[in-house]
């Protein structure tokens, strides 16, 4: 079974730079940032004022009243993205692709935790004595995975992964390995996050890693990350099965590597990320010299960006000069548990289109980040293989490798 290959046949995305694939694709290649002053909650007592919020996503347009009763915003992003991805893939479950042999693996960092502010306020402040009955199923991190299975009838392995900012890469990686190993033949996989609640924003403020300016990854004048909300989903299929049904293939997913720093809860190490990238390349059987693009974790914190640049230089050595790097977080923000999925969509589109998305808001090179950053404007370069990095608080690293698909 080790010769089984896995391809991406469907993409869906809901984020600050697009609530559908077409809009996301246009904006991500134009370098258009979705970062703006926060509108959805009162920020008068916040020190930072900006985030990458999803605008123009009208819940009742996507879900009926009964569905909205069990889907909070973080789940709505994942379900909406899954519908887009499934439709784009044209997948239909039948004798060739069985519902029993399809997996659903979703990801979220905080799940519904960020939606509990209203309940706390009602109980503690207004002395109410009850909550609505659906708070438990609404808040559970697997809420979206369960809903997608009920909506599609897909009934293979279905679960949710939570590893902070690496959640989505872990989810996509596990789904990919399940197909390659022969456990299943297809998977619906990705992640979502809704970090814009007062409690959560205050918690991030206390960590002092969020910029009061905007997100400027790898730029010398960077001042920290910008939080974003959203979700993205990919449909993965075993290559022969996808070909047999005549599916359009966006790219091949060929490697997944994961490690732990075993070091510090917030300070990244160099060793953990380096080993994760190397593991992913070895898993993909792709030599470093064949990689032309890295979609970086690139949070725009001082610590991450200099560490990640050093990790890229260590893994690619002299070839590093030929590896173009961008952080699309400069446009869609750091969507935490959704980050790997949104960035996987950007990476797959880059391979498919032969265009590499830029790092927006870039002002000046930083000697601490001695890598080839794609500055502000997309580059028309067809690359053979691309790496997408996610490194989480708690020192958990997950890296994916994608390859251009050429029949």
């Amino acid at each position, binding site marked *: 079974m080790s010769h089984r290959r896995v391809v991406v046949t469907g993409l869906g995305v809901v984020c600050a730079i697009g609530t559908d694939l077409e809009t996301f694709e246009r904006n991500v290649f134009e370098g258009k940032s979705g970062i703006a002053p926060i509108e959805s909650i009162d920020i008068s007592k916040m*020190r930072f004022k900006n985030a990458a919020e999803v605008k123009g996503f009208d819940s009742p347009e996507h879900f009926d009243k009964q569905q909205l009763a069990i889907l909070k915003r973080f789940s709505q992003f994942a379900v909406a993205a899954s519908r887009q991805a499934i439709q784009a893939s044209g997948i239909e479950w039948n004798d060739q692709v069985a519902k029993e042999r399809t997996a659903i693996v979703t990801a979220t960092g905080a799940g519904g935790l960020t939606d509990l502010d209203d309940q706390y306020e009602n109980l503690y402040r207004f002395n109410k004595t009850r909550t609505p009955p659906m708070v438990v199923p609404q808040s559970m991190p697997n809420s979206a995975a369960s809903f997608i299975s009920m909506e599609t009838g897909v009934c293979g392995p279905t679960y949710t992964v939570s590893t902070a900012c690496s959640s989505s890469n872990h989810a996509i990686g596990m789904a990919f390995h399940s197909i390659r190993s022969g456990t299943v033949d297809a998977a619906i996989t990705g992640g979502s996050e809704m970090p814009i609640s007062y409690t959560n924003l205050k918690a991030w403020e206390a960590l*002092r890693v969020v910029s009061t300016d905007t997100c400027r990854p790898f730029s010398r004048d960077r001042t920290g990350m910008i939080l974003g909300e959203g979700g993205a989903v990919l449909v993965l299929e075993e290559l022969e099965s996808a070909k047999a049904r005549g599916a359009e293939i966006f790219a091949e997913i060929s490697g997944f590597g994961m490690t732990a720093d075993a070091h*510090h*809860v*917030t*300070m990244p190490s160099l060793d953990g990320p380096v080993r994760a990238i190397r593991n992913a390349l070895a898993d993909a059987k792709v030599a470093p010299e064949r990689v032309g693009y890295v979609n970086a974790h690139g949070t725009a914190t001082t610590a991450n960006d200099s560490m990640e640049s050093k990790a890229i230089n260590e893994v690619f050595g002299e070839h590093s000069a030929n590896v173009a790097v961008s952080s699309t977080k400069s446009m869609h923000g750091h969507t935490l548990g959704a980050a790997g999925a949104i960035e996987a969509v950007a990476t797959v589109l880059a391979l498919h289109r032969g265009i590499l998305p830029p790092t927006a808001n870039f002002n000046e090179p930083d000697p601490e980040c001695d890598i080839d950053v794609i500055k502000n404007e997309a580059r028309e370069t067809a690359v053979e293989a691309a790496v997408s990095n996610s490194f989480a608080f708690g020192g958990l690293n997950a890296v994916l490798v994608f390859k251009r698909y050429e029949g």
Partner: protein
Amino acid sequence: MSSEIAEKTIEVIANFKEIDKDTITLETKLKDLEMDSLDALNLVFELEEAFDIVIPDEQAFETDSVSDMVTGIETLLANKEKEAGGEEE
């Protein structure tokens, strides 16, 4: 330099580090207190709580010694008093 603010600052640090406050002076360097970045972050939080002030990000980690900290806190407290006075007018 206000001895009251200095004393309170030293007390917050001593409680935070769980050490005798007599081992800390105004000249004590923060690096001598063996604080990593998370300790520094948590100490800034403790000081904000103790003095009811907001320490801006750009000031939070720029102090070198206890005396720098006390000076910074004094300035923030003075600004706070000025703002409160301004509101009353």
